């Protein structure tokens, strides 16, 4: 059953999410350092710069993500280094310049293909301990809004969604939008095998997809 799969680039992945109503960080795709500097100015500093291409899956592990860049010089330098770090196997690459999204809380969301039940949508507590806590809940695609709302209440640490250290409670409707949106993205593409939205950062109560990766059957 495990057919060959390929991944969409982060940019492509996020365009599909955004089209389904999932909030994503403002960002631009740039060909070179000069364009990256211009994009950063337009988006507003600080920004993150990432190397972007369909074959690049593990950006963080390879050091292909530069966060919190505060001025044009830093953006230019990071952009140059990232392009230089590209390997032939990465294929065509570009730079993704995104406005930094800050929030104290991270969620993880996505879609997986279960061998028995097929595609399902996940919501969980994010951050570096996400896989250790494994506080995640699933529903089968397609999801109704009611299904999605019930997922929020099933998290063991559902207090995570409430007001936290001066930040407002998570906007439940927007989070439901994310889950129903993931379902929609899956429904629209029968070849889709998985979606990772990690992290889904909560900024001013709104969950925003900061990184995303879609895997499709080749």
């Amino acid at each position: 059953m495990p057919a060959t799969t390929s991944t969409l680039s982060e940019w492509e992945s996020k365009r599909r999410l955004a089209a389904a109503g999932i909030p994503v960080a403002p960002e631009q795709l740039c060909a070179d350092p000069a364009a990256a500097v211009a994009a950063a100015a337009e988006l507003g500093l600080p920004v993150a710069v990432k190397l972007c291409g369909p074959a690049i899956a593990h950006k963080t592990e390879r050091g292909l993500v530069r966060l919190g860049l505060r001025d044009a010089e830093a953006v230019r330098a990071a952009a140059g280094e990232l392009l230089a770090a590209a390997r032939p196997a990465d294929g065509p690459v570009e730079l993704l310049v995104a406005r930094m999204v800050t929030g104290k809380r991270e969620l993880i969301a996505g879609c997986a293909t279960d061998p028995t039940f097929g595609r399902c949508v996940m919501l969980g507590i994010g951050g570096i301990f996400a896989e250790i806590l494994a506080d995640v809940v699933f529903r089968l695609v397609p999801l109704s809004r009611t299904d999605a709302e019930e997922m929020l209440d099933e998290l063991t640490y559902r207090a995570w969604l409430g007001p936290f250290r001066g930040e407002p409670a998570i906007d439940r409707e927007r989070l439901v939008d994310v889950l129903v949106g993931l379902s929609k993205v899956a429904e629209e593409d029968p070849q889709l095998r998985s979606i990772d939205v990690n992290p889904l950062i909560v900024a001013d109560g709104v969950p925003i997809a900061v990184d995303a990766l879609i895997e499709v059957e080749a």
Partner: protein
Amino acid sequence: MTATPNLDRYRALFEPKGIIVAGASSHPGKFGFVAAHNILAHGYRGKVFLTNREGGTILDEQTLRSVDEVPEGAADLVFVCTPPASIPDLLRSCARKGVTAAFVSSAGFGEAGEEGLRAERELADLCAELGILLAGPNGQGIISTPVGLCAQIIAPYPPAGRIAVASQSGGFVQAFLNYARSTGVGVSRAVSAGNSAATSVGDYLEFFAADPATDVSLIYVEGLADGRAFFEKARAAAAKKPIVVLKGGVTAGGARAAASHTGALATNDRVFDGMCRQAGLSRATTVEEAFEIAASFAVHPLPRGRRVFVLTTAGGWGVITADRIAQSRDLELLPLPADLRAAFDAKLPPRWSRNNPADLAGSETRDTVLECLELGVAHADVDAVVLLGVGIQSNLGDLERRGRFYPGHGLERIVEYHERQDTRYASAAVELSRKYDKPVLVATELADTQPGNPGIVKLKELGAFAYPSSHQAATALEHLFRYRRWRDRRAS
């Protein structure tokens, strides 16, 4: 995708007008004997035809040498105990006689390797072609109490009731039937699905949902050949009646290689759990809990909300029960309403707890418990009641009866009074639940430790039961409440 089955076809399986036992045996050690015995011994009112190649009598019944001797149209169900190779011809003969359902208990199919699997597929295809509803193969039998049908090679025959069982393991059909017998909360239908070659647990759920004899389904599943089809059928069935699920094999394949974080977190237990919640299925964590939740659905009305009132004459039990409810994600320990407190004050001396849990603290007289119970059940803010302390008085009476001063010293009268009080409490729990259409759950360790206690016996007589511990009552209430909420949210 399986086609939507015609539910009428299940009638032949669960309410046959006549049964052929193919491969009936005169040897009490053989399944062909056991099946014939159980069908004949439990009051099935339809015609029974035993076939045996050698002829002769079995259990005083004259056997037929072949199905060809069965009068046309006299039987619509065949219970098959013959070896796999003989079954295709047998079924063709049965179809000619008007049989429309077959329960195949014979083993040697899909569970026995490649060749068996091929034979199983051929069997399913043949039944489809003959218009026969196929249950099994490799199943342990069917029960249908409305018609006194005990067509199984396991035990026991349960009391009649409203729970329908479908299981991928015959062992769990047996376990659930045993619980039915010990609790008295009975069964409408039960089927051991065996290898589910043509009829799956999901299919039986469709029938149970439409079955007027059934109020709740109780199922055991391990593997699901078509998870999506199961989900769709179960969800549609749950919209009509509650379904309790016990799942085996939740850890198998848990360590799946996955490229994505989501995939790594998507263990099959978590996905199954989410599927259950989405489909409105009440998932039990243990075998005994599975039966107890099903029995709860069968016995109690659904609570309209989450607010629970605890009434106790058993001291610490009240505190522990309140703790359990207060910690529940689904239930709420109702802060005692002022008017209810005032009404209790008017009936009780001041040493009662004046709180929820309402601990009467030994201040009750002949009718106080009954009156307070009705006040609690009737109160508009109360959605469900847990009653603790039923049986205590009889237990004391039992001690007095066993002591060397009995009879005499006025002991007979007080023992009898104690026992009468407990039967009154038990009756009131059932009657008030019906009168106000709210669940009233009785919990006491005496359910386990002294099943002959008059309070416990009375509950059973009335078709109800006592939970052996209040945490079990709270778990049951959580399931009742969650199911109600699931259904209400999707009602519009």
